C-alpha cells in the first residue's frame, strides 16, 4: 500500500507540471495587460516609462519560458508571489478566503450525504412504491433546474418580501465582532442558508439517485439472498450487505466531487457575495492578476490529485479485491 501511494504521488508530479504549463499559457495568451490595468486612472499612469518599469518589475518583459521557469522556481519554495492588484502575498489572500469556501462545501456535503443516503436506500428498498415514484420525480425536477436559476429566484423573492433573519448577501453581519460565540455561529448559519441550499440541492438530487440505483443493483446480488436465507434482520441485510457494497462507487463519486470544495461555485459566490475562493478566482481573472490565478490553479490541481488518491485508497479499504489488485 505504501509503495502504491508513493508511486501515485511521484506520478502526480508530471501531471501537476502539465497542468501549470497549460494554465500559464492560457492565462498569458488571454488578451489584456495587467500593467496597463493597474496604471489606468492613476496620476501619470499614461507614461510609457512607468508602464515599462511596472512590466519589468513583474518580469513581464522576459520571454514566456523564462517567466514560467522563474515562477516554478519560486513555487518549489512555496512562494506564490504577490498579487498584482493589492501587492499582498497571494497565499495570504487565498488563506483568508479558503475557510469560507471549504466550510460551506463541507457542511453542504455532510448535509447532502445525510439526506441522500437514507432517501436513496428507502427508494431502492421500496422500488416502484409511492415514495420511490414521488421522490424520483421530485429529484429529477430538482436536478434539471440549474442552481443559479434557483439562486436568482430566491434572491428575487427575498428582495421582494424581506425576511429579517434571512440575509441574501455576504457571510457575516456588520456587528459580527460584537456577538457572542453562539451568536456568531447563528449569524454565519443564517448567511449560509440560502447559498447552502442552492449549493446542495443538485448534489442531493444526484447522490440520492446514485445511491438508489446502486442499491437496486446490490439488493439483487446472491450474497443478499444468502444473508436473508440465514435469517439476518432486514436492517443488517440492507445496510451491512447491500449498502456496504455501494461504498466503492459512492467513494469514487465523492472523490470527483471534492475538488469543487476548493474551487467553490464561482457563480453562486458572486451572486450571494460570499467571500470565498470562487469570487477571488473570478475577480483575479477579471483583473489579470496572474500570480493569484496561477496559485489558485495549483491549489485546486493539487487538491484534485490528492482527493482522487484519497478516494482510491478509501476504495481499497472498502473493497479487499481492489486492495489486493493494488
Amino acid at each position: 500500500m505504501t509503495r502504491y501511494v508513493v508511486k501515485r504521488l511521484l506520478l502526480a508530479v508530471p501531471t501537476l507540471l502539465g497542468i501549470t504549463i497549460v494554465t500559464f499559457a492560457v492565462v498569458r495568451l488571454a488578451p489584456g495587460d495587467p500593467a496597463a490595468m493597474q496604471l489606468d486612472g492613476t496620476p501619470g499612469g499614461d507614461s510609457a516609462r512607468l508602464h515599462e518599469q511596472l512590466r519589468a518589475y513583474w518580469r513581464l518583459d522576459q520571454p514566456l519560458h523564462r517567466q514560467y521557469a522563474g515562477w516554478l522556481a519560486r513555487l518549489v519554495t512555496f512562494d506564490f508571489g504577490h498579487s498584482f492588484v493589492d501587492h499582498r502575498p497571494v497565499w495570504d489572500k487565498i488563506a483568508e478566503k479558503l475557510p469560507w469556501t471549504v466550510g460551506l462545501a463541507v457542511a453542504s456535503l455532510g448535509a447532502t450525504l445525510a439526506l441522500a443516503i437514507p432517501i436513496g436506500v428507502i427508494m431502492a428498498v421500496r422500488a416502484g412504491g409511492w415514495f420511490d415514484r414521488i421522490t424520483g420525480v421530485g429529484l429529477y425536477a430538482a436536478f434539471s433546474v440549474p442552481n443559479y436559476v434557483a439562486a436568482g429566484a430566491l434572491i428575487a423573492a427575498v428582495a421582494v418580501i424581506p425576511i429579517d433573519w434571512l440575509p441574501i448577501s455576504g457571510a457575516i453581519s456588520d456587528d459580527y465582532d460584537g456577538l457572542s460565540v453562539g451568536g456568531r455561529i447563528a449569524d454565519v448559519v443564517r448567511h449560509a442558508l440560502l447559498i447552502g441550499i442552492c449549493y446542495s440541492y443538485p448534489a442531493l438530487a444526484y447522490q440520492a439517485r446514485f445511491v438508489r440505483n446502486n442499491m437496486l443493483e446490490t439488493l439483487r446480488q446472491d450474497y443478499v439472498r444468502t444473508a436473508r436465507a440465514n435469517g439476518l434482520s432486514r436492517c443488517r441485510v440492507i445496510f451491512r450487505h447491500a449498502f456496504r457494497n455501494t461504498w466503492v462507487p459512492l467513494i469514487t463519486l465523492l472523490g470527483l466531487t471534492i475538488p469543487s470544495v476548493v474551487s467553490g461555485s464561482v457563480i453562486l459566490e458572486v451572486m450571494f457575495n460570499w467571500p470565498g475562493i470562487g469570487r477571488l478566482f473570478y475577480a483575479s481573472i477579471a483583473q489579470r492578476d496572474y500570480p493569484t490565478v496561477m496559485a489558485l490553479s495549483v491549489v485546486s490541481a493539487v487538491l484534485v490529485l490528492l482527493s482522487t488518491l484519497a478516494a482510491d485508497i478509501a476504495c481499497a479499504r472498502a473493497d479487499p479485491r481492489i486492495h489486493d489488485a493494488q
Partner: protein
Amino acid sequence: MMPPDRPMLDVVDLHTRFRTGDGVVRAVDGVSFSIHRGQTLALVGESGCGKSATALSIMRLIDPPGEIADGQIRLHSVDDNPPVDLRTLSERRLREIRGRRVGMVFQDPMTALNPVLPVGGQIAESIRAHRPVDRRRAWHDTIELLDDVGIAAPDRRARQYPHEWSGGMIQRALIAMAVAGRPDLLIADEPTTALDVTTQAQILELLQRLQREFGMAILFITHDLGIVADMADDVCVMYAGRIVERADVRTLFTQPAHPYTQALLAALAGFDRSPTRAEPIPGGVPHPLHLPDGCRFHPRCVLSRRLAADGRRETAVVPRDRESVIVLRNCIRPVDGRDIGGPSLRPVAAGHDVACWEANDGAAIGIARP
C-alpha cells in the same frame, strides 16, 4: 425424537408465479411432496422446470414480481407442537425459521458470499442472528464449524475474504453457515453444479456426514441423476412446473414410469456401465409463457409419438377423480372440449406416482432403459 415416518416438511399444492410484461409465468404449478426427518428428497429436472423456484418458495425468498399464489408449506416441529405454514408466516417469525430450522445452500458459491466482508465474519454474523452469544464466542464457534467442514487452518482462513477462497472451500463455508443453527431441514439448490468433479464428491460426502450427525432432512435439488442415485431416498421428477413422477430412488431407477424420467435416464451416458449410448431428449423445455396444451411433455414424448403413429392414441379413456371419465385425443385435450390441464399424479404402485395418461409402469411401455 420424532419417529422417522412423520414428515418434516409437507408442501401441498404449491403455486408460484411471476408476473412479467408478456404474461404470468407459472414457475411452480401445483407441486406437492413431503420430506421425512433424516431423509433426502431429490428434486430433479432440466433447467427452468421450477426446481429453484420451489426451493425459494419454501424459504419465502420469492421477490416481486414473483409471488406464492397458493398452497401450503407446512413445517413440522420436532416436539409435538402443531406445524407452521411458512406461506402465511410473518416476516419476523420467518427470520426465526430461516437459518435456524431451515438452512439453505445455493448453487454458485463464488457469488454467494459478500465480497467485502471476511468469510468468518459472515458465518459469525449468522450464528449471532440466532443465538444470544457475544462476538468472541461466535468467532470461536465459527472456527470450530470451519474446521468441522474440512477447512484447513480455519483460524487464518476465517479472516480472509471470499475472493481468496476457492469455490469448493466457499461451498463448505456456506454449508457450515447453513447448518450453524442445527436446522431440521437443509435445502441444497444444486450445491455442486458450479464445482469440479472431485470437489463435487467431497461436498456430497460432507452433506451426507452432516445429515448423519444432525439427523436433518435434505431437499436436494439437482439436474444430475448420477448424484440423485448417490444421495436421495426419494425422488420427485419435475417438468415445466409440475411433478411428473414421484418414487423412492430404487423404484425410480429400476422402474421409471414416466416417459420423461425414462428419457432422462436414457440421457445419462454410461450409467450402470451399460453399453447403451446416451440418448439426448429431443426438443427443449417449453417456453414458460407458451406451455403445450394437455400434457406439457407430449411434444417431446417418445411414447406419445409412438402411440399416435400406431393409430392407437386417437382416443383413450382415462379415469379422473374416481368417477368422471374423459375422452382424450393424443395427450392434448379432451374430445368433449373441457380443458383439464395436464395429467395429474396418480399411483401406479405403492409409493410410486406418475403424471401421465398413458404410462402403466416402466416395463409396459417398453422403452429401452440404459
